[in-house]
């Protein structure tokens, strides 16, 4: 995970096309400028970053389903809950489950798990758009490949 670059996914560990389910691992870095401000002498991962991890898990689920042909854009969030403070160095698992496959959009139930418990949840709506540039499409595909999505994605 590189917080400053909004790269929240270290690996895609599971993708089940039939269930519409995807699981990722996110390793919170031990050091980051983010922790210098949030908070001085008491570093914890901001809730907005936890939301972004769930957002990424949802986005990867949509991309796995569409063969990385559409870019998922965060459009709406509902029912977001954050139950635990997360310290630097924590290894998190996040899941996304497809709630609805709409025309040009998708809705997921996303969650973050730590030590077997759900510590954050949200219902996330994403709009699925054509990649605005070929360069961006190539970079997103590279990142997805690096995270291990390449061999799992369905075309």
């Amino acid at each position, binding site marked *: 995970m590189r917080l400053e670059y909004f790269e929240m996914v270290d690996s895609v560990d599971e993708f089940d096309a039939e269930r519409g389910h995807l699981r990722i691992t996110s390793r919170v870095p031990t050091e980051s400028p983010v922790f210098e401000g949030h908070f001085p002498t008491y570093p914890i991962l901001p809730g907005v970053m936890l939301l972004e991890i769930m957002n990424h898990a949802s986005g990867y689920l949509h991309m796995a389903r569409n063969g990385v042909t559409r870019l998922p854009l965060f459009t709406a969030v509902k029912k977001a809950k954050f139950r635990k403070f997360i310290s630097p160095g924590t290894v998190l698992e996040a899941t996304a489950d497809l709630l609805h496959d709409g*025309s*040009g*959009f998708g809705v997921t139930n996303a969650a973050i798990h730590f030590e077997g418990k759900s510590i954050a949840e949200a219902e996330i*709506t994403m709009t699925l758009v054509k990649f605005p540039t070929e360069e961006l499409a190539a970079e997103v595909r590279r990142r997805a490949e690096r995270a291990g999505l390449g061999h799992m994605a369905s075309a």
Partner: protein
Amino acid sequence: MSSTFDIVAGVISETSEIPREKITPEAHAIDDLGIDSLDFLDIVFALDKKFGIKIPLESWTEEVNQGRAKVEDYFVLKNLCARIDELVAAKNA
């Protein structure tokens, strides 16, 4: 059994907090009811679930953008209901 319009009006009222009595078959979702694109996604989500269909929002938008259809064809509620009836009929065919 509720008509398509009753179901659509109920969903719009619930999703967008618009009083049910303001929602008429002649109402334009955007111009008259002030529904924005984000609210419309919620409405489509709910209608897809209620009717067991997938409203082709992307192709409708493309048709309007390319001038092959008018906004009214999809966003005046009686027309939206007619499109939904067609999608339900196609699903059951």
